[in-house]
């Protein structure tokens, strides 16, 4: 699969994906990127360059918190986990996303027609 075929992330979706990924447990940045990639079956390629500013943005808003730790293969890494506020934000953003996606689906019609 070439980069060209991969989905470009819509503005704001990266934040939601990060929050969703961290909902399953704490992870470092590279881990988050890998998790999103594998969960999307490699459809979504996370731009590493925008991942870290996004993490910082979420941390600044108090949705995630970070601390330095050691990775499974003994590398020092900065681990992120969801805060309570982050959990609430995830719920809210997920709801918004689905209502947005539903609305898009209504306008675009059933998937089969795009085929």
């Amino acid at each position, binding site marked *: 699969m070439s980069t060209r075929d991969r989905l470009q992330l819509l503005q704001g979706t990266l934040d939601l994906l990060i929050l969703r990924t961290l909902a399953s447990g704490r992870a470092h940045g590279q881990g988050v990127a*890998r998790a999103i990639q594998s969960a999307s079956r490699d459809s979504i390629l996370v731009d590493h*360059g925008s991942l870290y*500013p996004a993490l910082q943005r979420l941390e600044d808003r108090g949705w995630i918190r970070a601390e330095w730790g050691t990775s499974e293969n003994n590398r020092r*890494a900065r681990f992120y986990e969801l805060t309570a506020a982050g959990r609430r934000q995830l719920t809210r953003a997920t709801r918004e996303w689905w209502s947005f996606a539903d609305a898009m689906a209504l306008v675009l019609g059933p998937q089969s027609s795009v085929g």
Partner: protein
Amino acid sequence: MRNPLLFLRRRRRPDADFAEEIAAHLELEADRLVAEGLSRREAVHEAHRRFGNIGLVQEDFHRRRTIGWMEAIPQQLRRGARRLVRAPLFSITATLTIALGIGATTAVFSLVNGVLLRPLPFAHPDRLVDISHSIVLQGLSHVDQSDATYLYYRRANHVFTDVGAYRAADVNLSAVGSGDAARARRVEAARASASLFGVLGVAPMRGRVFRDDEDLPGAIPVAIIAERLWQEQYASDPGIVGSEIMVDGVVHEVIGVMPRSFAFPDEGTALWVPIGIDPANTKTAAFDYRAVGRLRPGMTPAAAAADLARLLPKVPEAFPGRLTANAIALTHMEPVVRPLRDVLLGGVGDALWVILGAAAFLLLIACANVANLFLVRAEERQHELAVRRALGAGRGVIVAEFFSEGVSVAVLGGVLGVALAVAGIHALRSMPSGIAIPRLGGVGVDGTVLAAAAGATLLTAFIMSVVPALRSYGAGGASVLVQTSRSATAGRSRHRTRRVFVVVQVALALVLITGAGLMARSFQALRSVNPGFDTARSYTFRVQLPNAAYPASGSVVGYVTRALDEISRLPGVQAAGAISKVPLETEARQDTAVFMEGKVPAGGMGQAMPDIHQVAYATPGSFSALGIPIIEGRSFDVPDASRAPLQAIVTSAFARRYWGDEPAVGRRVRFAPVGPWFTVIGVTGDVHGTRLDEPPDETVYLPLVIAPGPAMANGGADSTRWSPRELAFVVRSSAAPHDATLPVERTLRSLAPAVPVYGVRSMEEVVDRSTARTSFTMGLLEIASLTALVIGEVGLYGVVSYMVSLREREIAVRMALGAQPGALRRRVLGEAMAVAVVGIVVGLGVTLLSMRVIAALLFEVAPNDAATLAGAVAVMGVVALAASWIPARRAAAVDPATTLRTDI
């Protein structure tokens, strides 16, 4: 939307920590890739590739973390400066324009600050008030204090902590001794009550001030000198206190030295002697003194005036004399209490504020001009900026760039401007004839002025940068790229902004030109007033003959007669005389009550108050020496000290007031309700002796030989401020100015070595000094309006040329399609003039609204004088036409072939 205050909550995360996280990421990613089968080297390379631009991400983090632009200020300024150095013509023009604006504003503000805003150098100056009286009399509306009112107010009031009295009275100062030591100099001096120093709250730097018992005449003579005099005349002699000096021929003991800050009542007052008021022997109706009161805390001037109004009717009881309860009631005499600062400053505020306004206008014009330059520059860079925006440069960065350039230019201009201001103030202070502005000595660039200049500089930087910055901020990258590509002309809105700036410049310049024009016309009108005397080749020399050296009036007359005799024989001298009051000089003016024979004043005999008129004492020759024509009758007889003739000469205005068209010669006047009559023997032409812009004087001239003797003692002399011992020799000479004055001075000196000759000037100088403030205001407004014209012309020229250069293609197309060069020229010219006309119309509106503020400074010209307005519009129109002509011609000279070919 991000909460803008979020950064306050953020923990500070160091840049290094973020960098470390990225490094960790790259290692983890490489580990994973190795696990997928890549070699270590390939894996590291691939991890980097997938990450993208690490530096950019880190810089972005840094910018978001710190409030980016604040940390970047020095860097931005450096970059801004570098960009400016690369565009020297632009930078120099912009900087000089700003320097002119800031320089003018700073110089004038330092004047306003030093003269008007700087607190008086006394303790709690806001509680100091001047105490005087309003009065309703023909020829008099205002009097100060007599010894009686001062003494009674001081004793009986409930509103002042204390009251001090003073009277400016210059003296002849010399060392004690004879020969060279006895050579006196004229020194500005004042008589002061002991209480004055306490009221003003200034302590001597050496010695002591006067004691209350030294107020009395006949006390041992003492004097206090000013620090400046102490340094200049006595070389800061530490033993000065206790030493003896000669003041008006009398030995005085120096008891104290006042610090330089104590410049009271005038900037140049250098010596104080006791006031010499005798409570047992008052002249109750001679209002010779001025009084300063210190209000008790919380007391207002109005409350103080009310308290004094209660006291005034009781003054005659305490001090019986000519000031009777009846006189107080008949003249509606009322105490007036005004802040001391207002009284000391006089009317100078009007002129200064107008000039400051003009300077501020000039600064605005400079700002508009430079903002326009910046706008043009920004446009030239629009393409570059759009590319940079497209490549990811933040809007903030680009806005910061504009501001950094603006700040660089403004700061440089501000520094230059302050230097200009310092030079300007220096020039102002060294102006020879003086500009009739009080407290000028204290004017300088101090902290307040620097702060104001810095404020003006920052404001300037803001005004200059904000418009180009906003434009670049608002414009989207793509639209700019399209708009500024060569196949299009610049956007309309941009032209509009530039035109607005030009309109502002033209409008403000028009206001300044009109102001300068009105002042010039006032000045012209003032100088075309016939003063009533002939200024050409007429010179004055002042002397004061001290009582000590010339105790008897006969000796004064003897001195005057001999001096005139010797002066008359000097080569070139055509006429010579001595007179107590020189027209248009303020010194030695005397106003006194005048009673006319056969005229019963309104209100009935005994009930009525007399009219007040100026009285001057003159020798027969002084009229021809001053060139004052005797239009009816004749001049005085040759003076004879032993037999003073009871003669008077009156001015035309005086004669008209009392006798209308009937002959004045033969009428009789006197200066007391009873006493000898003086017969009018002559009438002079109209003399504007008080001010050129006031109606001609109603003056009575008496023969100089009449010294205060028994004949006058119980009469008019009571209310005289004049002493016949202080007088001016007036000489008309055909010799060159220098040859005319030197021999006269030498003659007077050799006649009386101990009597200093001062105030030596031509009558032309006297007139110049009397109009100094008008000519000063006019001069500054003219400088301001000329500068405004030049800046405005450059601005208009720049904008029109730029518009032409942007439209070269369009013009070329038109020409290729057959447009005539002449028509194109007219078209460009027409567009430029349309902008100028809008500016002129706006300017006219502003002018009509704002010229009211200078009405007080004008003379015989209305603030909305049509001719002046028309002239200003014409000047502005011609300048605008000139500024547009060259670019218009260039437009017509566009070669379509060349221009269109380069566009492929």
